[in-house]
């Protein structure tokens, strides 16, 4: 005898076929990314706070430019660090790699008169090799990343001092300095604004809206749930308004800094890779559960290795940007940068055990720290108090997340 039995439904299962309300969808999206939205709100709050406190100095066009140039290299490091932390590792050596690459670029350009473009390419290669060196020991030999990169921290700092013989080397060619200090050149007829910046801003708006529209269309085509039209339009309007305001601010000064172009490009590129490329997914899977990822066909060693090569290249890039900003290769460059990058990652939503976080989060975390630094300097808070405050912000950000998770768990 055969009975076709319908299994009893779980008491906890939601009734199917019933469409969740708009509010519920929004709330769910918010809750899923609480750390990041929370930090975005915190960033907005900090900006408003200092905007008022500094009587409007914070958001003056020249200060916004300055802010971007001041924090470019930390943002670049934070993006790489975020990926390392998602993979379940840590990199303590980035500050030393920054110094080492800065020193090498100085030697190449100042002592050997190498063209700056070639020197830049070689510098990035040196970073890749440094990353591969550490990645080899972590991925293939199996030494914990904390140890390998702690060793790397000492090693590359020492090599910096050997290369520089304890001296600073300066000055750099102007083209190289422009990486950190330059703006994209003005073109076309005189308007009140910087023309290429306006075009870039327009392109950004079109790109973002197009992506939103395409996503929504494809979701509808696949018969998936979408947010209601009203909320979607509001979201698009908000994106447009923010980009326009930011563009006009920059365009009324010298335009888009080169370093912002680099950082923005990395943000889009790395964000896309982490979200959509197979290797990005494999990084998340490795950080979430290494054993399960391996048994699902993830090449764990290769992925780990590549994560550290990527970090090496980004550290080298940050090293060049920093050297260009200082206009010198110095033995003390990059001191404590690793800590700033790690702090930015954790403020931006990384988890100590790996598996979670986004590249965007790292940038938001870096900007929180950057705006705090800049704002506090503007109102004249001493560096001693600045450190105390930054420490408390890090603690509060992660504490809030832990609290929020525990609440969700109950």
């Amino acid at each position, binding site marked *: 005898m055969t009975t076709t039995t319908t299994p009893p439904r779980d008491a906890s299962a939601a009734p199917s076929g019933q469409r969740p309300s708009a509010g519920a969808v929004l709330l769910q999206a918010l809750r899923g990314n609480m750390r990041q939205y929370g930090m975005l709100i915190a960033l907005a709050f900090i900006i408003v706070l200092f905007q008022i406190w500094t009587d409007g100095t914070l958001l003056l066009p020249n200060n916004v430019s300055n802010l971007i140039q001041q924090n470019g290299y930390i943002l670049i490091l934070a993006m790489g660090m975020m990926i390392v932390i998602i993979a379940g590792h840590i990199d303590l050596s980035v500050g030393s790699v920054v110094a080492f690459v800065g020193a090498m670029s100085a030697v190449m350009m100042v002592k050997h008169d190498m063209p700056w473009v070639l020197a830049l390419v070689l510098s990035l290669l040196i970073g890749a090799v440094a990353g591969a060196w550490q990645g080899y020991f972590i991925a293939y030999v199996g030494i914990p990343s904390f140890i390998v990169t702690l060793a790397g921290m000492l090693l590359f700092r020492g090599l910096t001092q050997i290369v520089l013989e304890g001296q600073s080397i300066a000055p750099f060619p102007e083209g190289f300095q422009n990486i950190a200090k330059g703006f994209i050149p003005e073109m076309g007829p005189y308007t009140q604004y910087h023309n290429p910046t306006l075009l870039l801003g327009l392109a950004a708006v079109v790109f973002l809206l197009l992506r939103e529209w395409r996503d929504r269309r494809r979701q509808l085509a696949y018969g998936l749930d979408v947010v209601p039209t009203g909320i979607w339009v509001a979201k698009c309007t908000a994106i447009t308004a923010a980009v326009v305001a930011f563009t006009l601010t920059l365009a009324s000064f010298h335009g888009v800094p080169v370093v912002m172009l680099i950082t923005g490009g990395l943000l889009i590129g790395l964000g896309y890779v982490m979200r959509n490329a197979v290797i990005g*997914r494999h990084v998340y899977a490795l950080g979430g*559960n290494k054993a*399960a990822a391996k048994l*699902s066909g993830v090449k764990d060693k290769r992925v780990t290795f590549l994560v550290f090569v990527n970090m090496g290249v980004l550290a080298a890039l940050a090293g060049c940007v920093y050297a260009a900003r200082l206009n010198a290769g110095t033995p003390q460059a990059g001191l404590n940068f690793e800590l700033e990058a790690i702090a930015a990652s954790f403020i931006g939503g990384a988890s100590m055990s790996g598996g979670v976080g986004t590249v965007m989060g790292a940038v938001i975390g870096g900007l929180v720290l950057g705006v705090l630094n800049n704002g506090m300097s503007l109102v004249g808070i001493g560096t001693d108090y600045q450190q105390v405050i930054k420490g408390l912000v890090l603690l509060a950000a992660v504490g809030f997340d832990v609290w929020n998770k525990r609440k969700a768990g109950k």
Partner: protein
Amino acid sequence: MTRPVLEMRGITKTFPGVKALCEVNLTVRAGEIHAICGENGAGKSTLMKVLSGVYPHGSYEGEIRFEGEPVAFKDIRASERHGIVIIHQELALIPYLSIAENIFLGNEQAKRGLIDWNDTLRSASRLLRRVGLREKPQTPVADIGVGKQQLVEIAKALSKEVKLLILDEPTAALNDEDSAKLLDLILELREQGIASIIISHKLNEIRRIADSVTILRDGRTVETLTVRQAPEDEPRLSEDRIIRGMVGRDLDQRFPDRTRYEGEDAGQVALSVRGWTVRHPVDHQRTVVDDVSLTVRRGEIVGIAGLMGAGRTELAMSVFGRSYGQYVAGTVEVGGREVVTRTVPAAIEAGLAYCTEDRKQYGLNLIDNINRNISLASLPGMRRRGVVDEHHERRVAERYRTTMNIKAPTVFEQVGRLSGGNQQKVVLSKWIHADPEVLILDEPTRGIDVGAKYEIYTVIDKLAAQGKAVLFISSELPELLGMCDRIYTMAEGRLTGEVSRAEATQEVLMRQMTQNRS
């Protein structure tokens, strides 16, 4: 009848959006063994968490009376002070500490803040004798097996002057021998006047030791049944009667009827393993899998039976990309073609899939969602212009959520929050979507409830009906007998027999599984 030691009345516990318990009643009499049965999600664990103070007084409605007095526990320590001790499904021992240190963890035998080691070791030895564990109290917990660790947990409970012992799935991870020992110990504790509450899916165990059983379903008490009047009586309650209470229907059939695969290539050998030999990953002297040869045909479900340590999982994992141990010899053919499965990606490429016995450790990324867990093994195939097509990915996940009946509001639910049965469905979905020729399923129904088991069996049957070859590893003989066309038996790393469905009985299998090297 004796007086009740514990009375829980009208317990209602709500989580945001879900009523986990609704007016649940539970009465445990002094010195009895009281079983709690119910499907996953029926509220058993929640009820025990209310009782032990994990959910503090005030977070639930209803009344708890212990030894006649109303009690209100604000945390676990409070319930332990009254003598209620809970032993969780996942053992809470610290692997690198000794047995003695674990027993007295949080309850150290100390004078003025300094640990009295003599006292600690002496008391620990006494407790170990009481639970019948012959190990030195100085032995690190990591060095003893799971069965013995379970006994250490009980010794730990005894050190707290336990009056009511709660065991959550105590034998889920144990082999038959260790299970039997543990059940005997629980019976012995009853002689000493210690009452126990035991949560278990294994109905034969309940019939063996319990005095009464309370059945929960969907967060409500269905009924409390008497298993036996006096401890020495034979049980009067049938397993079918308990199942009826749990599922709210008669389960005439615990296994689906097998559907034949009708394809042209039916009967062709899909997987052929020859002379497979593997050594232990650390102890290279030890041969864990010894010259094993087996075949599985298209549309066939082939079982592997064996006791713990027989080498079944080790065989499966080493064939699947040499994920276990040190490969010594052997060949694998998939669909008549020899394949070299040196790495997991190569094994997947060759058409193999392996569903692990330990889904939390080796099967799932618990902090990620259903969507991404299902796609993980087939990401390269989901690419569109070089990157993962997220919409396609989500549609695939939605499809499996519906067809596999995964109970979750959306595919973006974190896998760690699902019940065991639903987690298992996610693991299965992952491997079904990888579209292998051969599926190796290692204990696919471990720790999941009767209803979900039936669903998993149906899925396995469907796979075979589509022409997949299924290798089914299980410790539950009835399940192998109910599902498989052929069954191999293993003992001490070697194949000890092969029986067809018609010849197989539990007795035949057990005899072959316990065959020792002559």
